[in-house]
């Protein structure tokens, strides 16, 4: 109205605004209540087979395919995609968001515990949950307090505070925090219902991955287990109603437990790592959750003081969600010694009647396991790494000659400590029977150094690091690799100078969506890798793209964001120095076909 009269926004206009505002606020409040009254509680059945157009789990369903069965947007019309709306997310920390869709609402986690509910069609804000910053007292509590908390007055844009995913169940949103607590927030109002402190953040514990819900239990994996302390990393099961802890399973074999001798004679306090920093998957038929664990800390054996297997680091764990009991484990890289994490997503696919689990770690080996027994079925080395040999029959790896690092001696290795694969999840398409894998091509001259073996010490251990381009990369950092499943044969590759920096999203429209660090979002033909549509967004594409539909219209949503580790820091800065990304601009961007 004000704009139509074309009057300058003078005093009277401002006054008119300030009168209108409360009214507008009331209107929007009642509008949001109306939306939220329609809210159907999310059941276990819905999580397993979501209603048409809904995206209820961080990778779509508990099988984590990252696949949308929607096909309105397809290879024939994707070039007509248009921006429908965009919404700025907080720039107060790193954003790697995995939005969820239910009842026409988008629930999106952003930095530092902020969660927002947006109308998925219009992009209007329905509610937001914004935690109060931690108090000085909390920050200063305890010996060895460290970066788990942010001092008041800290600037925007710091690399922490990331919440990758949240969970939806019943009428609640569940989130895990950078101060090692779990929160239940009413999905209809945005009000905090309960908060449970799971671990002591002053010991370094924090969360970057959110929970999943499996058979009525809230399951969450913790991280920040790099420093030496009298405890180890773990996965918990909580009661979603009350926040009460039902079980806690250590991801490190304690000295007295089975497998306890795989850390040599190191006492519990010197068994670090095995962080569970990526959310797992769930198979309701087997009633098992599948969760990855990270590498041991310090990274190099010589620095850790043990060349044992270090169970249950770099493993896939199959746990019963009711009691946390381990049905099986498979250790991908026993006694890992180069920071080659295997913690990432678990994709559950039935291949020729065999219930399988697919996973890839930093080394770029695609593992196929039997998800009922944990048996090794197949391993496909994508052929870029120079560190291990894989026995194709047994799935056992052995280190190549001279490739086990010694303190202070330079090692030439591919990939770098950043890895080829990271949290940027791969996606599966049942239509092409192929896996679409975001890769960063890179190598490193690495010199691993010592660290203090004392409580509060440890950590990853220092590394003198010189990054360089992978010899087969033609100067490209990014590769989207399509592999046929289960053969592991290369279907196609698409390379870019900048690293890909999001998960892949596949759709029944025959498309793969992905975004790179240099702001380009792309839609490719899943069959042949042809680029069909591109757009440039505010800053680095970063997070987990999704697809959903409301009232018959299909949407694609792409999160972009700042922060992030070496994939979005030293690697592009050093190896593609001509590229620059804005240091703010975190947002969610939603596209659809013209009406």
């Amino acid at each position, binding site marked *: 109205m004000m704009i139509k009269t074309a009057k300058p926004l003078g005093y009277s206009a401002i006054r008119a605004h300030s009168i209108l505002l409360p009214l507008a606020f009331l209107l929007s409040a009642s509008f949001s209540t109306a939306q939220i009254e329609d809210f159907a509680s999310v059941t276990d059945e819905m999580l397993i087979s979501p209603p048409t157009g809904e995206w209820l789990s961080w990778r779509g369903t508990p099988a984590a395919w990252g696949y949308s069965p929607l096909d309105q947007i397809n290879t024939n019309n994707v070039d007509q995609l248009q921006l429908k709306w965009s919404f700025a997310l907080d720039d107060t920390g790193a954003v790697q968001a995995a939005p969820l869709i239910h009842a026409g609402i988008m629930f999106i986690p952003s930095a530092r515990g902020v969660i927002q509910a947006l109308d998925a069609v219009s992009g209007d804000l329905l509610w937001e949950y914004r935690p109060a910053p931690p108090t000085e007292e909390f920050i200063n509590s305890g010996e*060895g*307090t*460290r*970066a788990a908390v*942010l*001092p008041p*007055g*800290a*600037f925007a*844009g*710091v*690399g*922490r505070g990331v919440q990758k995913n949240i969970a939806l169940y019943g009428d609640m949103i569940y989130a895990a925090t950078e101060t090692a607590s779990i929160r239940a927030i009413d999905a209809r109002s945005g009000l905090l219902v309960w908060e449970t402190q799971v671990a002591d953040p002053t010991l*370094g514990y924090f969360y970057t991955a959110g929970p999943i819900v499996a058979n009525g239990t809230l399951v969450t994996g913790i991280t*920040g287990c*790099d*420093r030496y302390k009298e405890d180890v990393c773990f996965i918990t099961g909580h009661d979603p109603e009350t926040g009460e802890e039902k079980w806690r399973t250590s991801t490190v074999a304690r000295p007295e437990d089975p497998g306890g001798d795989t850390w040599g004679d190191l006492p519990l306090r010197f068994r670090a790592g095995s*962080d569970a920093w990526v959310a797992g998957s769930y198979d309701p038929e087997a009633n098992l959750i599948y969760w990855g664990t990270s590498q041991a*800390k310090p990274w190099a054996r010589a620095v850790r003081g043990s060349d044992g297997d270090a169970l249950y680091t770099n493993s896939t764990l199959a746990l019963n969600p009711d009691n946390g009991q381990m049905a099986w484990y498979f250790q991908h890289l026993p006694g890992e010694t180069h920071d080659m994490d295997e913690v990432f997503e678990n994709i559950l696919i039935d291949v020729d009647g065999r219930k399988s689990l697919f996973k890839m770690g930093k080394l770029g080996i695609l593992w196929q396991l039997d998800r009922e027994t944990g048996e090794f079925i197949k391993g496909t080395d994508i052929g870029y790494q120079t560190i291990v040999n894989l026995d194709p029959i047994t799935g056992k790896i052995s280190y190549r000659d001279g490739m086990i690092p010694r303190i*202070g001696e330079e090692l030439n290795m591919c990939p770098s400590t950043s890895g080829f694969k990271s949290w940027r999840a791969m996606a599966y398409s049942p239509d092409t029977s192929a896996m679409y894998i975001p890769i960063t091509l890179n190598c490193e001259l690495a010199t691993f*150094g*010592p*660290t*203090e073996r004392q409580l*509060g*010490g440890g*950590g*990853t*251990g*220092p*590394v*003198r690091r010189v990054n360089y381009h992978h010899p087969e990369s033609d100067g490209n950092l990014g590769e989207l690799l399509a592999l046929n499943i289960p053969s592991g044969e290369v279907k196609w590759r698409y390379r870019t100078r900048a690293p890909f920096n999001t998960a892949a999203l596949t759709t029944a429209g025959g498309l793969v969506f992905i975004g790179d660090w240099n702001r380009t979002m792309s839609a490719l033909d899943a069959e042949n890798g042809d680029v069909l549509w591109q757009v440039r967004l505010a800053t680095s594409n970063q997070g987990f793209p999704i697809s959903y539909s409301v009232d018959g219209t299909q949407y694609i949503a792409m999160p972009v964001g*700042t*922060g992030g*580790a*070496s994939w979005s*820091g030293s690697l592009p800065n050093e190896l593609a120095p001509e590229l620059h990304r804005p*240091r703010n601009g975190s947002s969610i961007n939603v596209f659809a076909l013209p009406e």
Partner: protein
Amino acid sequence: MIISMDSSLKKITSLFTLLSLAAVSHAIEAQSVWDGVYSDAQASRGEFIYREACLSCHGQDLGGNSNSPGLVGMGFMFLWEGKTLGEFFEKIRSEMPTDRPGQLPAKDYLNVVAYILQENAMPSGKELSSSAAALDAIAISSK
């Protein structure tokens, strides 16, 4: 334009170079981080800057986390021994904080360096100068 330097000019130039080198080495003695090269006031200002601009990644105890290297103890020595305080200062000033490199005033970076030295149990003493030559003359060595 081609300038051919005759030999007498060359001599003069090299003499001048020698003299100026001597002057520099006279003014700035080779030192190590153990010689009391920063002041307590600088370190305490540096602590404030550190909390505002570095702590969130490198930790309250400067021990780092799985993405950001530690800035104290064996890890610090492993990464920096044999280099100069000039190189250390330049690394921080040109690359930190990672999301807004070079955005702090040079003095703040200098104070943070003083604070990091203090946290590495290196003794305080004279004021640390921001001159590149002075910083380059201070070696990072183990005790």
